[in-house]
């Protein structure tokens, strides 16, 4: 008998005890379905985050922090920060100085470095409309500008320009993104006093809408010139500017080795640099960990299912002992018997894998709809889950391998049956 014949015999034997086969396949299905779902979700989320970062993040940029803030070097065993005379440490945070900016700028590969100042505006308003809370972020001189749905990204030095996030267009009373272009908006801000609720002074600043940013899940703030950002921060702090970190630009033609040596140079200087790629990698690490954790659950389910396969096949061997005896008497070799039972186990794995993956794909649209209504509300696409063919085939192949492993013991037992004992069995 050829291998294919054994496989055919084995898989057709599955039909002999339909309910038992069904239950065993279902057990596998639970595991493979979970695996397929976890894969689809994490692939989808990974793809989604990549897309988000591609659209809004800026390659060849990085954020630079003082290691004192991120690492434990200057903290005591009980997490108390050591006093550093060159930096003020009133709030526990160490701030960047002009010397830091100069030092970062000097590192090979760094093309520019700008202190990041926080501005906390009170509101944004179009004409005499309602006032809304807003966050302000700075637009630094970089080679690449993020995507916009309307208008043109302004010159970072243009202190009167503002880029509004999409969510603010209708909110502020504009008919459309195009309608908002060139219109004036007012941002109100004030300098807070030391006492709670005390306001020392306030002012309003006018901006011209230069562009509208594409819609995104985590709605970023409105973007203004970095120069204006510094001016407003200075107003709010009465000239006592504080930068927690730096925004730096890097050479776009940098090789990964150069990036690594640039980062280690910065590290040696007491800075920790997070490049654009680092941030993506950070997200991916988190997703990988979540995926691994969820897959472990699927693994446990599959392990239980493997025991089910063993049990099913041991029962089949017992039931068909006489048949095995006859086949041996008629001249089938032990390895032939082994192949028949093993292919039965592999078939169970195969069908369990196909059913699990199939079910996961089938209910994908439903899960997508639920996700889009809850966690991923406002997501621009129509589906989140992704089913890469290679991953799905890998899951099915894995289920077959599991069957192969689980089937070995029962198949060996069948192969070793003594023909006479088997024939006398009833």
């Amino acid at each position, binding site marked *: *008998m*050829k291998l294919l*014949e054994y496989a055919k015999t084995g898989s057709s034997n599955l039909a*002999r005890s339909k309910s038992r086969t069904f239950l065993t396949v279902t057990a596998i299905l639970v595991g493979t379905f979970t695996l397929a779902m976890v894969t689809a979700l994490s692939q989808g989320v990974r793809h989604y985050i990549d897309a988000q970062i591609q659209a809004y993040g800026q390659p060849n940029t990085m954020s630079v922090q003082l290691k004192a803030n991120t690492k434990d070097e200057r903290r005591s065993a009980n997490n108390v920060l050591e006093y550093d005379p060159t930096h003020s440490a009133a709030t526990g945070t160490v701030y960047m100085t002009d010397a830091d900016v100069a030092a970062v700028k000097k590192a090979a590969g760094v093309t520019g470095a700008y202190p990041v100042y926080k501005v906390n505006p009170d509101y944004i308003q179009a004409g005499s409309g309602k006032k809304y809370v807003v966050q302000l972020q700075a637009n630094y001189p970089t080679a690449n500008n993020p995507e916009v749905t309307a208008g043109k990204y302004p010159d970072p030095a243009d202190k009167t320009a503002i880029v509004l996030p999409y969510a603010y267009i209708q909110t502020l009373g504009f008919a459309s993104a195009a309608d908002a272009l060139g219109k004036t908006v007012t941002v109100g801000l004030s300098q807070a006093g030391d006492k709670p609720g005390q306001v020392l002074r306030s002012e309003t600043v006018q901006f011209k809408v230069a562009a509208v940013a594409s819609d995104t899940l985590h709605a970023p703030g409105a973007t203004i010139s970095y120069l204006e950002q510094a001016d407003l921060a200075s107003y709010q702090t009465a000239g006592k500017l504080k930068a927690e970190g730096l925004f730096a630009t890097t050479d776009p033609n940098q090789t990964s080795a150069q990036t690594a040596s640039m980062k280690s140079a910065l590290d040696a200087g007491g800075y920790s640099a997070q490049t654009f790629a680092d941030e993506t990698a950070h997200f991916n690490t988190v997703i990988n960990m979540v995926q691994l954790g969820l897959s472990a659950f699927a693994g446990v389910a599959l392990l239980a299912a493997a025991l089910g396969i063993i049990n099913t096949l041991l029962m089949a061997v017992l039931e068909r002992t*006489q*048949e095995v*005896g*006859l*086949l*041996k*008497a*008629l*001249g*089938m*070799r*032990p390895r*032939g018997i082994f192949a028949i039972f093993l292919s039965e186990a592999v078939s169970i794995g195969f069908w369990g894998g196909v059913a699990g993956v199939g079910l996961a794909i089938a209910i994908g649209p439903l899960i997508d709809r639920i996700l889009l209504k809850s966690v991923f509300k406002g997501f621009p696409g129509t589906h989140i889950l992704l089913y890469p063919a290679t991953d799905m085939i890998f899951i099915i192949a894995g289920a077959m391998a599991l069957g192969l492993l689980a089937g070995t013991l029962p198949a060996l037992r069948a192969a070793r049956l*003594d*023909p*006479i004992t088997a*024939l006398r069995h009833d």
Partner: protein
Amino acid sequence: MTNALLQTNQLHKTYGKRDTAYEALRGVDLSIAPGESVAIVGKSGSGKSTLMHLLAGLDTATSGSVKVGGHDLGHMSEGELSSLRNTKFGFIFQQFFLQPRLTVLENVALPLKIANISVAESNRRAMEALEQVELTDKAKNRATDLSGGQKQRVAIARALVAGPEVIFADEPTGNLDTQTGHTVIKLLFDLHRKRHITLVVVTHDADLAKLCDRTIIIKDGKIQ
């Protein structure tokens, strides 16, 4: 006899171990020539089936030897024994042992399928074998649909299909009424004569034993 097809030398078979040990064969010396028909008779539990199983390489002796065409079965690998049973031996059992899920034709073709012969060729030869037992009209039926006599005739066709040198039959008429038994016996001996197939038949049936060239009587694991 030097040209013996089957030959045993001081064959012993003990079942079980220590306190449950039972010596079913106690030194059997036997020689069967090609084309001979031999009846093995004796009381129930005397060791007839045990002897037949050892001769057919279905079981291994505790001591002594079985030679088939001069080759010691004890020196053969599992694979060699399998192919010996597949090509040189045919088996007929009291309980028929037909596969209920298979058709009559598929049951008959089973040894050929095991021998890796193509489906078309297997079916052709199985049909020929069914002609010999006059059951061609039942070829497509399920094996379970047949009467006892018909089942045993299918089993004979299956034993025949690979063109064996020896057919081993363990009480082939044991589950059949006298009338049907006679039909089966006649069939078996026709084949034996026409094709010069060696017959080794374990039986309680005196009529069947009489038809054989030689009768071997077993008592308490020994030849009398």
